[in-house]
């Protein structure tokens, strides 16, 4: 599972950093590299475009993982280039942007939009696999997540918009409940579809999610 990102329109990036002339660019050697949105090549291309647009690029860096605290090391390695910059343009997911913001002591701007946690299919194709809802039901749904794969996140079966295995929202999206039905049927477990799922607990994890996992559920409940 990785974080899928998409580059913001260049004009949007220029507007977002319109107050700033000197830019330091940070990429990410993990998810954004795999998505081709923040690897070495994309960071170099961004530096060139910004230069053409009249910005001064004081330096670039692609740490192994943009979200890791090691990003903080850049403060020392790229001290002068960072000091010279008005802003840090971060070509990673929002986690990397927030890490840079807290570690580098500089204003930051995201160059990417963070879309979802997903998997990679054919080159350039990504699909969402988990919404991190905190109440996993995959045992009842043949290992296909209805919360994620169904556009409406329905728990109790298909809606009336299901159409020969496709979803009413179009764009080639499949009906999750047809997939689930086919999977459960092949496993001889269709009775799982008869199970009534009550309304979800949307606060299974109180947002923002902050949790102490040093204690078991039982210990935590006893406290």
């Amino acid at each position, binding site marked *: 599972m990785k974080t899928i990102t998409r580059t913001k329109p260049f004009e949007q990036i220029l507007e977002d950093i319109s107050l700033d002339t000197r830019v330091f660019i940070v990429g990410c050697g993990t998810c954004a590299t795999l998505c081709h949105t923040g690897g070495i090549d994309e960071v170099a291309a961004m530096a060139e475009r910004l230069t053409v647009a009249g910005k001064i690029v004081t330096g670039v860096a692609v740490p192994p993982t943009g979200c890791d605290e090691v990003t903080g090391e850049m403060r020392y390695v790229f001290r002068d280039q960072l000091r010279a910059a008005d802003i840090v343009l971060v070509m990673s997911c929002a986690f990397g942007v927030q890490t840079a913001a807290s570690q580098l002591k500089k204003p930051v701007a995201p160059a990417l939009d963070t879309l979802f946690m997903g998997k990679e299919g054919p080159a350039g194709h990504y699909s969402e696999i988990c919404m991190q809802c905190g109440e996993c039901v995959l045992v009842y749904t043949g290992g296909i997540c209805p919360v994620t794969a169904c556009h409406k996140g*329905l728990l109790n*079966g*298909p809606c*009336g918009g299901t159409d020969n295995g496709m*979803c*009413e929202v179009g764009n080639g999206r499949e009906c999750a409940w047809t997939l689930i039905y086919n999977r459960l049927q092949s496993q001889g477990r269709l009775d799982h579809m008869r199970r009534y799922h009550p309304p979800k607990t*949307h606060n299974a994890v109180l947002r923002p999610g902050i949790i102490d996992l040093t204690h078991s559920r039982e210990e935590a409940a006893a406290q």
Partner: protein
Amino acid sequence: MSRFKEALDSGKFVITAEIGPPKGVNVEPMKHHIALLKDRVDGLNVTDNQSSVLRYPSLGGALLVKEMGGEPILQMTCRDRNRLALQADLFFAYSRGITNVLCLTGDAVVVGDHKDAKGVFDLDSVQLLDAIHTLSEGKDLAGNPLDGTPRFCKGAIVTPEAQPLEPQLLKFEKKIEAGAEFIQTQAIYDLTNFSNFMDYARKFQVKILAGIVVLVSAGMAKFMNKNVPGIFVPKALIDELAGAPKGKALETGINIAARTIRTIRDGRMADGVHIMAIGREESVPRILDLAGIH
């Protein structure tokens, strides 16, 4: 007990029709349709931001039906409100004499006219049915006691032409287990297919109202076959519409609707029909006349 529920329980052939609220606050055309239909049917179903297109609310339309002496059936989708708002609207509805509810998931936001809106879907249609049952036991969804208990006649929908059909039927059964007392079907045109569905549906303690959508042209029929999930208009009907004299396609569609209703009623194929005129409400009295329903 609501008048509509009494009609369902009486064993008579039940007729309901649909009222579409306006895009805006001019309710006069809607009031005209209500006046036209309220004494010809057992219930008037008011749509809830149908097809995810913003409209005057179903609650407001249902209230107008009630105030004008008709029997409202409140359509309630799960798309636009979370469980607090749904329960609060149910309290309001019941307090104003609106005691029939049709529970729907609701179309996806992106098929409508506010494509950037957040789709809520805090509950689904089965959970909404169950929620209404919970309210009828004097408790809200959080388990708190109610001051005054609403008791609704509750319904849901099914799509007998869905492909694949079995997942749809499994959900149909869950809706009945969750307390659905009546089921409206998506528009049906192929009566052989519908008859097969009814052979199955008859096994359950629930009233089935066959969905009737008036066809206005061969083009509309072809469009629905291609674009509307779960609708199948047989070729013979498309040919009949295509063969209508110029300017007479709507008349042919009205005749088809009337004939379908008559066949369903005379053959006792369903417990009633639900007529969705979709902008052709003026034609509903004629359809009923031609079907021999007075």
